[in-house]
């Protein structure tokens, strides 16, 4: 069954069309990189694929089931774009990773042996086994990012979405991350990675999809970081060593006290 089938997908945020006419089909075992400049709509596309953003138009099928009827969420892993894994209260690395196992746990049941094994395995894959008892706040930014990936892995998903996992992560941690993703790929997982800079992940990518202004500008063989921004893709040359741009506002921010950003 095809993990992702999006036909003529469109997304609007606060009434403003953001994605238009997006067709995307991802086959089992593929490693797809969603590339593009900031504000090109690649994060929005991933949020639409995970059901976080409703489609204004078009049809999305996950594992052959229409999104409206899809409830096999344990088959999907999601690593949201986050600055860190901390919250207002301390939590250990193990606890954060274990919360990813909820997709397969029933209400009010203790962790089974299989649950514990999956959590241990997820920690092992990202190389944080020896830090399991530490608080996530004690980890570096890159290690926290790896903990978030382990959280998605704990549910043993078949299809994994990662939104900018390497943003602001130092090189040793990027390498550790690439190692974890290589392991997943070997196990046959389907991976959709959003990034504006592939770095050490480039070797893993089977297929590149480049977004530009809410549409798919390129879909095919992997590109180098430079080619993505080449003029022939119609992209203004934004060299990746420049400081990152501010987050692109899809909908103009007109706010009043009780209406936050969309």
């Amino acid at each position: 069954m095809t993990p992702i089938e999006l036909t003529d997908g469109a997304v609007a945020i606060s009434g403003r069309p953001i994605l238009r006419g997006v067709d995307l089909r991802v086959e089992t075992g593929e490693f797809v990189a969603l590339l593009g400049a900031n504000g090109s709509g690649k994060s929005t596309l991933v949020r639409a694929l995970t059901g976080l953003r409703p489609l204004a138009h078009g049809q999305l099928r996950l594992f052959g089931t229409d999104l409206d009827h899809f409830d096999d969420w344990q088959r999907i892993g999601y690593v949201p774009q986050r600055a860190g894994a901390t919250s207002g209260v301390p939590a250990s690395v193990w606890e954060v990773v274990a919360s990813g196992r909820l997709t397969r746990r029933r209400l009010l049941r203790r962790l089974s042996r299989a649950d514990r094994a999956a959590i241990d395995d997820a920690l092992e894959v990202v190389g944080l086994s020896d830090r399991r008892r530490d608080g996530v706040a004690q980890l570096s930014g890159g290690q926290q990012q790896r903990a978030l990936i382990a959280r998605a892995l704990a549910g043993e998903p078949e299809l994994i979405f990662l939104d900018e996992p390497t943003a602001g992560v130092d090189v040793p941690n990027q390498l550790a991350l690439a190692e974890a993703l290589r392991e997943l790929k070997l196990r046959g997982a389907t991976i959709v990675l959003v990034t504006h800079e592939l770095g050490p992940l480039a070797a893993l990518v089977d297929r590149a999809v480049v977004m530009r202004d809410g549409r798919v500008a390129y879909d095919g063989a992997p590109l180098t970081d430079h080619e993505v921004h080449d003029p022939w893709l119609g992209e203004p040359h934004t060299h990746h060593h420049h400081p990152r741009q501010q987050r692109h506002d899809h909908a103009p921010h007109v706010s009043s006290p009780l209406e936050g950003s969309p």
Partner: protein
Amino acid sequence: MSAAELFSLPFMQRALIAALFTGLAAPAVGTYLVQRRLALMGDGLGHVAVTGVAVGLLTGTSPTWTAVLVAILGAVLIEVIRERGHTNGDVALALLFYGGLAGGVLITGLAGQSAASLQQYLFGSITTVSATDVLITIGLAALVITTCVGLAPQLFAVSQDQEFARVAGLNVRFYNVLVAVLAAVSVTVAMRTVGLLLVSALMVVPVATSQQLTRSFRTTLGAAMALGTLASLGGLVIAALAPFGANVQPGPTIVLLSLAGFVVTWPIGAWLRHRARINEPFASDPPIEHQVTDEHPHDHGPDCGHAAVEHGDHVDYVHDGHRHAPHGRHYDEH
């Protein structure tokens, strides 16, 4: 009156039971509120519940139940506002603060009651708790505690990262409203113990205290509940044993005792965090060049007083802003 006689009095026993259950329930919900960075939500709901109490006084029904109802309404309202526009939740909270308090005082006046009758709900009056009140307190508190502990994995995941929880297939809206309703219920439970204006202290201060020393969520939750119980029972006993003639009110005593716990723990937590930062291993990249230190006045060792920090396969001694690594008979700058 001796202490033994005091504790054999029925009103004192009722007060102790009410304090015990309040002390357990309030920090349990409070942990999830602090985790969501909504520490002041309890305070907002407390203010809203003032209107509920006033409605009870006006209609002649039990203020406990009207307070529960109005606080739940307020909690759901806060959740709806938060969901629609998450950036400005604090403004919504502020509006509820003022609306709730002003509405409460106004309706109390309309009911022909004096401010004094509102006073016992604002600052608590644990020693006037009736047998029915105790039963209601036990029931509601037990409900709050079992939900907070039983659904801990789900509530933790939703409070930690909403978007992740949604993609994991959890009904995030349900759990958000559940936390808000639990907060509203525990506000009313704590109303008789510490009063509506101090409710938030019992929900937040024990959590703030316990997280000075803890690293995991589970121990934070457990320790907060233990500290909350300790503070509410301790505060009540201190107030009861105060010398004759001194008017020591239980509500503020409980809150101040709880705060005293924080004041004692905070320096310890700050010192532990400082030590953890100092002892964090250095990145194990090899040094850029071999640079020998100048003549060194003493030998570094376990007792030299300088922090020994892991650096790859050896330790560096932190010495006046330098890192000295033993190398043969001399020290290298690392």
